[in-house]
């Protein structure tokens, strides 16, 4: 074509852009959750899938209704819904899961101003709400390995009715806490123990996380810091007194791996600075062990992450990178290192 007829566009430099976009990152994270969801389906049956679908539907419904135009398409609401579903038991009533998903988006994200503005991880905020609102339902853990077609009568409980009784099983953490009995390492790692949907398949989650880290969609420092600190702390306690569980149990029981890989790494609610990521992760690791061993609850991942979420602005301020060609660290006004 002759240069006489060319239509020129103007744009500021750089004129190139890496193909990674926020929606692409979100949808990739969602895609890596598919194996985790399939593991839940395998261990807990169709009921698990229904719970995840219900919480995701709740999240999407609210984002579509109150969110900014087309914000459903960026995929972040779907991640919130799926992650929330993965923290719930398989026999959880679907209507509660739906409400939880809607709450997570409404009060966890939109109320702060939507994508990128929220302080706390929306999925965990949703779970905290459900735990406060429905303490019995959320601690009713059905037995695993009843066949993948299993659905639970309690799934279909009508709103505000008492759920039907389910055959329940104690979680490894519950047994450790209340009955002082341990669980063998291998069942913990492959997931054939009781617990929330995403709590069980530790190895699958680690693999998916490794893929995301390799793609650069996940800050690897955070899961490494969370799991490493928890393991170190647990080992120290275990050596001091065998009463306390060892590192393998500490890492592979409960929701620690799911939390470390998929929730603590939520970009919006974790520090932006590399050093901040280490501090944040270490804080989560320490808090989890503290809550599990000395707290009143058997599991502490949710509160550990939510508490550290609150410190993120301080961590960010205290860990500003040293600018090239400067020596002393310049303190931002009012900034201080947050030491968890």
């Amino acid at each position, binding site marked *: 074509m002759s240069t006489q007829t060319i239509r020129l566009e*103007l744009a500021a430099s750089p004129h190139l852009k890496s193909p990674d976009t926020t929606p692409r990152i979100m949808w990739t994270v969602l895609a890596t959750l598919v194996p985790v969801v399939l593991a839940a389906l395998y261990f807990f049956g169709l009921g698990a899938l229904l719970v995840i679908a219900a919480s995701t539907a709740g999240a999407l419904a609210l984002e579509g209704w109150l969110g900014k135009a087309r914000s459903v398409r960026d995929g972040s609401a779907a991640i919130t819904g799926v992650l929330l579903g993965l923290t719930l038991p398989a026999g959880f009533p679907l209507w509660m899961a739906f409400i939880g998903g809607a709450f997570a988006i409404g009060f966890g994200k939109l109320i702060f101003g939507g994508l990128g503005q929220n302080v706390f991880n929306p999925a965990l905020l949703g779970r905290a709400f459900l735990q406060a609102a429905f303490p019995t339902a959320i601690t009713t853990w059905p037995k695993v390995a009843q066949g993948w077609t299993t659905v639970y009568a309690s799934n279909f409980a009508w709103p505000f009715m008492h759920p039907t009784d389910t055959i329940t099983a104690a979680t490894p953490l519950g047994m450790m806490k209340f009955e002082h009995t341990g669980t063998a390492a291998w069942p913990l790692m492959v997931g054939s123990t009781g617990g929330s949907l995403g709590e069980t398949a530790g190895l699958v989650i680690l693999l998916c996380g490794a893929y995301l880290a390799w793609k650069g969609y996940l800050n690897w420092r955070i899961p490494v810091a969370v799991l490493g600190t928890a393991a170190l702390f647990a080992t120290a306690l275990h050596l001091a007194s065998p009463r306390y569980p060892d590192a393998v149990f500490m890492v592979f029981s409960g929701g620690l791996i799911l939390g470390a890989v998929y929730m603590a790494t939520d970009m919006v609610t974790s520090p932006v600075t590399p050093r901040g990521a280490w501090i944040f992760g270490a804080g989560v690791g320490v808090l989890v062990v503290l809550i599990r061993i000395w707290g009143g609850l058997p599991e502490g991942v949710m509160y550990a992450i939510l508490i550290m979420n609150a410190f993120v602005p301080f961590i960010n301020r205290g860990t500003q990178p040293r600018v*090239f*060609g400067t020596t002393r660290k310049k303190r931002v006004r009012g900034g201080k290192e947050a030491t968890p």
Partner: protein
Amino acid sequence: MRSTFRHGVHPPDSKALTAAVPLRRMPYAAEVVLPLRQHAGKPARPVVRVGDRVQRGDVLAEADGFVSSPVHASAAGVVKAIGLWPHPDGTLSDAIRIAVDPFNPQIPRPRMVPDWNGLTPPEVVKAVQDAGVVGLGGAAFPTHVKLAPPKDIHLESLIVNGAECEPYLTTDHRTMVEYPERVHFGVRIMMRALGVKRAVIGVERNKPDAIERLRATLPPDLDVIILPLTVKYPQGAEKMLIHAVTGREVPSGKLPMNVGVVVQNVGSIATIAEVFETGLPLVERIVTVSGPGVRRPSNLIIPVGTKVRDILEFCGGVSADATEVVLGGPMMGTAQPNLDVPVTKGTTGVIVLTRRDTPRFETLPCIRCGSCLEACPVFLNPSMLGLHAQAGRYEEMESMHLADCMLCGACSYVCPSAIPLSQMFALSKTALKKARSKVVA
């Protein structure tokens, strides 16, 4: 020598389009336009009048002070007009237009630049200024200024920048492959002028033939190291290159000479050699014409002042899906609204991009992923700077070292939310400068 710097990004280098294309001379167009401001510093002062007949190499405008550079006629002809004309930086700027004489053989007057042998260092500096030599890597800083450091500065070595980290560009690459002896000769002149004993030529590893040719032709009496560098953007940024070669960081707000080095672009070095060899001032330069939107991607020797339209026509025109014509590299270059803009001494490339290369992403809110922090070569926090810029908190930005931002564009390149960070920083810098001048006035 660590051969790289921390952080940075990896855009596709896209150099295969022209890396193996030999240099060719472009014929004279009907008109050349020479802006008076083709360098960093004060614009040159015209010394010709409309209607004057000039020969190739004649002075059209002289340097206005020390940090300034003269402009020479790049073609013989008649001065047609002196006035405003589109400038590659997007403004209108004073320029001298010459109607090229189609029957003139374009033979320059004999030896306008003195023989370098026997010149004292100050005389070399003067000759380099008079020849109109400026940095050819893009910033166009007058070369002679770098050759005359203050008395209290102790220089250890000369670093030659052959990184050429911008995608598409292959001008330095072809210079090193086709004129390695000229590069070495230029290094010899520079070392003599600066009084340094050592030099390092840094070349990114994606140019193995250039590294090989430079090594094969290195004179045995010259203490020069050819250092292969990691392929990473912005490896060719002055401070990044110095860090890669010496391990030292140029202190914030200081110059390379403060850590004992002077950096010169390899194209400028070759030009200095050429100027002393031929006796002809800087009147032409090597330009890469490339990009998916160009019919015949080429490396051309072009008379300074040739219009982009003439260059693109010479390269077979542009494809129907072309969207942007960028002068310089695609990371830091400027998109042009008008193809009558001339190539200046600082123009490294004419890059034509298509829709596929310039997709328009919707800008989304910052998700604080931290990618920009891990991209920024000077360790700024672009994420937070961006929030400040949006709110107009320029003083906050200044305290976060906005001045150290060199607008390399690495943060914008990686931002998944497509936030135009480096554009915001450029605007913030301008806003701060304006606020400052108001305070003074």
